[in-house]
C-alpha cells in the first residue's frame, strides 16, 4: 500500500537526482577554485549522448558509461580556457553552455520524440524498501539514484577526510600556498573540472535515460543553471547538496501537483527559477553571517607571482 505522501516523496527523489548528481560535480569543480557556469551545456551533452548511445546500442548502461566521458571532455575545454589560458571563467562557461546546447541540437535531431527502446531497470532494495514512507521513497529507484546516495558520502569523505581532498580545498582557498608546497595547482584544477564535468554528464544521462526517459531539444531547460545556484545554496558541502537537490526536486514535482488547482502551468513552471533566486539569497545571507564555505579563490585564475 502506497500513500500519497510516499508517491510525492518518491517523485521528489527521482526529480532531485538530476540536481544532486550535477551539484556534486559542480561542488567538486568549485572547491578547486574553478566555477563552471557551463553546467547547462555539459549536462545536455550528457543527456543527448546517453540517449543516443542507449538507443543505438540497445544498452542503457553503455549510455550511462559514455555520456559522462563526453561531458568530461567539455569540462576539460572549460579547464583549458580557465586554467591553462587563465581567461574569464564566466564567459568561458557561457561559451561551453552554447556549444553544449548547439551540439546536442545537432546530435539529437534524429532522436527527438523516440521512446527509449532499451529496457529500463528499477530495483527495489529488499527489506529497506519495506520501511514505511522512507522505504518506497528512497529505496524503490533505479541504480543511478542509489549511486547518487553513495556519491554524496564518497565526495564528502574525499573532500574532508583525505589528503587529496585537503589539497583540492586548499587550491580553492589559497593556491599560492599549495604551489609553494610543490603541488600543481593547474593539475588539481584540471582533475576537478573534468571529474566534475563527468558527474554533470551523469546527471544528464539520468535525465534522458531514467527520469524522462526520452530526448527533447533543450530538455535540461535551465536545470544546469539551477545547479550553479544550488552549489552556492549548499555552501559547497555535499551533505547540504542533498537537502538542496531534494528541495528543488520537490518544487519540480509540486509544480505538476498544483496544476489541477487552476493555476496557470506557465506560471507554475517558473517556480524553480524563482526558488533559485530565493535560494541564492539564503546562501548569500548565510555566507555573510558565517564567512565560511565559499572557496576564496573561486573564479580567479592562478598565475605564479601574481
Amino acid at each position, binding site marked *: 500500500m502506497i500513500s500519497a505522501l510516499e508517491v510525492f516523496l518518491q517523485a521528489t527523489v527521482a526529480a532531485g537526482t538530476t540536481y544532486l548528481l550535477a551539484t556534486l560535480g559542480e561542488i567538486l569543480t568549485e572547491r578547486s577554485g574553478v566555477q563552471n*557556469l557551463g553546467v547547462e*551545456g555539459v549536462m545536455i551533452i550528457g543527456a543527448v549522448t546517453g540517449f543516443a548511445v542507449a538507443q543505438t546500442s540497445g544498452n542503457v548502461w553503455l549510455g550511462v558509461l559514455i555520456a559522462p566521458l563526453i561531458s568530461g571532455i567539455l569540462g576539460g*575545454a572549460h579547464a*583549458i*580556457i580557465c586554467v591553462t*589560458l*587563465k*581567461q*574569464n571563467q*564566466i*564567459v*568561458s562557461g*557561457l*561559451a*561551453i*553552455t*552554447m*556549444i*553544449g*546546447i*548547439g*551540439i*546536442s*541540437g*545537432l546530435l539529437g*535531431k534524429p532522436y527527438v520524440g523516440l521512446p527509449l527502446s532499451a529496457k529500463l531497470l528499477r530495483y527495489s532494495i529488499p527489506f529497506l524498501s519495506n520501511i514505511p514512507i522512507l522505504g518506497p521513497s528512497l529505496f524503490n529507484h533505479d541504480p543511478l539514484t542509489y549511486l547518487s546516495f553513495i556519491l554524496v558520502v564518497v565526495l564528502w569523505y574525499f573532500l574532508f577526510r583525505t589528503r587529496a581532498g585537503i589539497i583540492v580545498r586548499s587550491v580553492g582557498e589559497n593556491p599560492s600556498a599549495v604551489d609553494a608546497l610543490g603541488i600543481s595547482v593547474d593539475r588539481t584544477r584540471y582533475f576537478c573540472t573534468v571529474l566534475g564535468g563527468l558527474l554533470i554528464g551523469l546527471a544528464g544521462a539520468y535525465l534522458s535515460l531514467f527520469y524522462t526517459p526520452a530526448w527533447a*531539444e533543450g530538455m535540461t*531547460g*535551465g536545470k544546469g*543553471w*539551477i545547479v*550553479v*545556484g544550488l552549489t*552556492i545554496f549548499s555552501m559547497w558541502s555535499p551533505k547540504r547538496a542533498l537537502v538542496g537537490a531534494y528541495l528543488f526536486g520537490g518544487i519540480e514535482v509540486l509544480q505538476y501537483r498544483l496544476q489541477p488547482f487552476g493555476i*496557470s502551468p*506557465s*506560471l507554475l*513552471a*517558473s517556480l524553480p*527559477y*524563482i526558488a*533559485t*533566486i530565493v535560494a*541564492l*539569497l539564503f*546562501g*548569500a*545571507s548565510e*555566507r*555573510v553571517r558565517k564567512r565560511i564555505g565559499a572557496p576564496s579563490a573561486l573564479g580567479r585564475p592562478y*598565475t605564479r607571482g601574481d
Partner: protein
Amino acid sequence: MKILVERRENPSKITTLLSSVLSIGLALFVVAIIFLFYRVSPFEAFRRIMLSAFGSWYGFSETVVKAIPLMICASGLTLAFRARLWNIGAEGQLLIGAISASWVALTFPDSPSFLLLPLMFGFSFLFGSIWGLIPGLLRAKFGTQIAITSLMLNYIATKILEYLVYGPWKGPSEWGFPQTSKFSISAQLPRFASTRIHYPTLFFGVIFSLFLHIIVSRSVFGFEVRATGENPQAARYAGISFFKIALATMLISGGIAGVAGFGEVAGIQLRLRMGISPGYGYTAIIVAWLSRLNSILVIPVSLLFGGLLVGGDAIQLMGLPFAAFDLFNGLILLFVVGGDFLLQYSMKVEY
C-alpha cells in the same frame, strides 16, 4: 626546451584584430568539419550564407532587421560588462520590454501614433530596466551572482510571456494561435520602403552605441564604471560607490534591452507572441564580447551576426539544423576568450 610565458601590457590594435579574426576563422573551421559530417560542402554552405545575407538588397535588409536588436542589446551589455557585471539577462529584459510595450499598444489602440509609440518606448525601457535592476540590486545588497540571477529572470520572463499569450492576452480572432491581436496601425513602427527595417529602432541602436561610447570613454561615470570593472577594491577606496555603479549599469543595460523588445513587437511581429526573439539577448553577449566591449564596434559586429542569423535560416534549407548556429556562436565565444591569452601574454621558446 622550455616555453616561457610572460605577461604583456597593452597589445597593439593589429594584434587584437588578428586575434579576433583568428577566433572567427577557427570557429568557421570547426563548423566546416561539422558540415562535412552532414555531407554538405562547407564552401557551398558558406557561399549560401554570405549570398543570402549580403548578396541581395532584400537579403541585406533582413540582415539589418536582425542586427537591430543585437546592436541595441549588445551596446547596453558593453556598459555592464565594463563594470564586470555579467548581465546575461538581456534576453529576459528584451521580452519584458516587448510585453510592456504590447500592454500599452493593446490598452490604448486608438491613441495617435505620436503619443502611443513614445509611450511604448518609455514603458519598454522602464520595465526592461526594472528587470535588469533586480539582479543589480540583489548583487549590490546581498552579493548574489548577477550571471545566475539574470539568467533565472530570462526563464521567468519567458514563462510570463507564455502565460500571457496562451492565457489572458490571447487574441480572440487569431485562430487559436498563442499570440495577441494585431496592434492598431498607430502602434506600428514605420518601415523603410518595402523592407522590414523599422528605422526608428535602428536609429536608436546607432544612437545608443555612439552615446554609450562617449559615456564610457569621456564621462566621470564612465571612468567609475571602468575603474569598478578593473579593480573593484581600488575603486571602492577611491570613493566610488559599487552600489551606485551596479544599479546604474544594470538599469541602463536592462532598459536598453527592453527597447529592443519594443522594436521587435512594434516593428516586426506587430503583435506579442512566443518566439519573438531567437535568442537575440544571448547572441548579443557574443557581439559585445567580440566588439571588445567597445560599443561603436558593436554596430559592424551586429551586422555580421545579423547576417549569420539570416544565413542560418538559409542553410536550414540545405538540411542543416539551426542548432549549428548555437554551436558556431559558442565556438566563437570560446575561441575569442581563449585567444585573449595571446593578447595578455607573450610566449618565448627557450633552449
